[in-house]
């Protein structure tokens, strides 16, 4: 785990007049509710430990007020922690002075905002070029670069428009182009698609995934929508009242929820559409009379469609043509029903 792009270690954040004093109560185990009622301080984050791998999309999910925005703003230090460590590419960003911090923000990280946060007095091209403008680069160079990324997100031809002339979805495309034009390896997205209509939101998710296969950025994506989180996440972190309740590969969380809170959370999800064969297959053994072959990356929905609703039998799981495991349809059926939490 030492090669994580971003490492958050034992991070605490207390909002209020005297966070250090409030911290001492937190260390003694005082909860968010009690701290707020008795001491008037808000416990924003408690003991957060997350590693975000290079080239992956880490989704931080939780209900509103769970501390998602607070957490993502620690990564580029729009908010400073009360306690803890924050390593980016192995260096503790909390040790940086103003200038180095500014340099990190200019070159290493970019950010996309829920309400787009474009500059209303600048046209789309200049908005997309925010990062190079801030870095003081030459207009000739950045105009080409910004136009390239605008084109890439589907906004070719809108360079001269102003943000208020565009729809919400188009404005957020400008927001994404702005983040991409900075050429930073890390991209922070705080509920970037939450303000958009459902259909446009799906388009934007597809756009992001498509860009990601090409660019391999380290993306930290904030969402309060489980479907969105499951669709995008390589690594899913579930936050509740400022604490991490579970973090893992999303399929694993779906199959092994560690907490009643998460069981509730995932109970309404369409499991057939989210779970993939690879998460429920058994190790490769000799099968006689295999009913057919299924791909490792197929969703259960696709398998059910492929097998015509058959609920028994065994299939060989393949990956790029080679067999990698077996799938018993009875396991598939069982996986469709949420498990009661194992243990107690």
């Amino acid at each position, binding site marked *: 785990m030492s090669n994580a792009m971003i490492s958050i270690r034992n991070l605490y954040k207390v909002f209020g007049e005297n966070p250090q004093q409030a911290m001492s109560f937190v260390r003694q185990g005082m909860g968010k509710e009690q701290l707020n009622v008795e001491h008037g301080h808000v416990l924003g984050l408690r003991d957060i430990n997350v590693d975000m791998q290079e080239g992956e999309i880490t989704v931080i999910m939780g209900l509103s007020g769970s501390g998602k925005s607070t957490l993502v703003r620690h990564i580029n230090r729009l908010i400073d922690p009360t306690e803890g460590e924050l390593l980016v590419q192995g260096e503790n960003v909390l040790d940086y002075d103003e200038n180095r911090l500014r340099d990190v923000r200019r070159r290493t990280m970019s950010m996309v905002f829920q309400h787009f946060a474009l*500059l209303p*007095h600048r046209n789309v091209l200049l908005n997309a070029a925010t990062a190079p403008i801030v870095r003081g680069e030459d207009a000739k160079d950045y105009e080409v670069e910004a136009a390239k990324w605008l084109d890439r997100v589907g906004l070719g031809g809108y360079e001269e428009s102003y943000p208020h002339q565009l729809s919400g979805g188009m404005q957020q495309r400008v927001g994404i182009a702005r983040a991409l034009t900075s050429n930073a390896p890390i991209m922070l997205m705080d509920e970037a698609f939450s303000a958009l209509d459902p259909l446009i939101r799906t388009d934007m998710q597809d756009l992001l995934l498509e860009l990601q296969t090409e660019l391999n950025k380290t993306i930290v994506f904030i969402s309060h929508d489980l479907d969105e989180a499951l669709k995008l996440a390589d690594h899913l972190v579930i936050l509740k009242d400022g604490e991490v309740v579970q973090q893992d590969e999303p399929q694993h969380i779906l199959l092994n929820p560690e907490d009643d809170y998460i069981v509730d959370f995932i109970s309404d999800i369409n499991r057939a559409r989210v779970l993939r064969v690879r998460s429920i297959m058994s190790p490769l053994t000799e099968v006689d009379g295999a009913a057919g072959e299924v791909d490792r990356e197929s969703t259960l929905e696709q398998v059910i469609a492929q097998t015509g609703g058959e609920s028994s039998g065994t299939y060989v799981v393949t990956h790029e043509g080679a067999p990698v495991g077996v799938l018993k349809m009875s396991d598939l059926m069982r996986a469709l029903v949420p498990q009661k939490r194992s243990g107690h």
Partner: protein
Amino acid sequence: MATYDSLFETLGLKEWCDEGGGSAPLSMADLLARKNGGTQETSAWDTPFPSMDALNASCDKFPKSRDLTAGLEDGFLAIKDSLRFILDPITEPLSWMLDGAMWVAESTPWWIVIPVLLLITYWVSRSWSIVFSVGASILGLAFIDHYLPAIQTLSIVFVCALISVALGVPIGIAMSRSNRLQRVVLPILDMLQTLPTFVYLIPLIFLFSVTESKLYGIAIILYAIVPVIRLTDLGIRMVDKEVLEAAQAFGMTPRQKLYQVQIPLALPNIMAGVNQTIMMSLAMVVIASLVSAPGLGVLVLRGIRNLELGVGLVAGLGIVILAIILDRVTKSALARVNAGQKH
């Protein structure tokens, strides 16, 4: 003898009161009281409020309220010279600017001044209909022989509004960045705005001679600077928090943030402040005629002093016309800024 005699007796201050009393200035009420013999009893119903004057009636050593105002006067006179010593050189450029602008406006022939005004109008408003109405207004005023006072008034408004904006915008920016400064400045702005305008003319008359143009310049600026400060402060504080976060997230320096984000986004509010500042300069220019500001206000005053109804009314109408065109021109500039950055 007086109502509160017993008070001073019970406090044991009688002796102190009687020591060499009677030197306080006599008021009309004292004289009347002496004339009436002053020995009648006051009923409980008529008991006077224990004010400074009432207490003085019982104890000569106790100061009268007239002493308070006299004290203020003396205090002001005492610091007047040193205050003048500092303020005079600082404010001298204001006189030069006012006199210079006035000289230019008066000595340039009308057939140059009017086209230049129309050009400025077009440059600010980008609207031919506004240029047309401004042209018609000025030509109309010139036709009824009010060209010179109108142009004098405009030149004063121009200089004072310019200085108000040049000082007010930076003050507003500073206020928006410091809550403490805001707490100090806001009451001062409230005071400047609520004090009857004549009241701050009084100390100014003590400080500067009535023949200097900076006297009315300062009076106008003090009055007109308030809205541009207020709205600059408000405008910058109202800038969308998420946009500021974006500026920070992309690594802007505080200076970049100010010039590339805060001021441009506050511009609609700042322009609204400039509009009000110009209108208030114009309102004040009439009152400033009392302290020798030239222009249409002088004619209004003549109308009042000499009961020349027609002169006063026509000059008043001229001011209204100036107000309308100044308002339309600045509002159209404001509308252009607004159209550029709707959300």
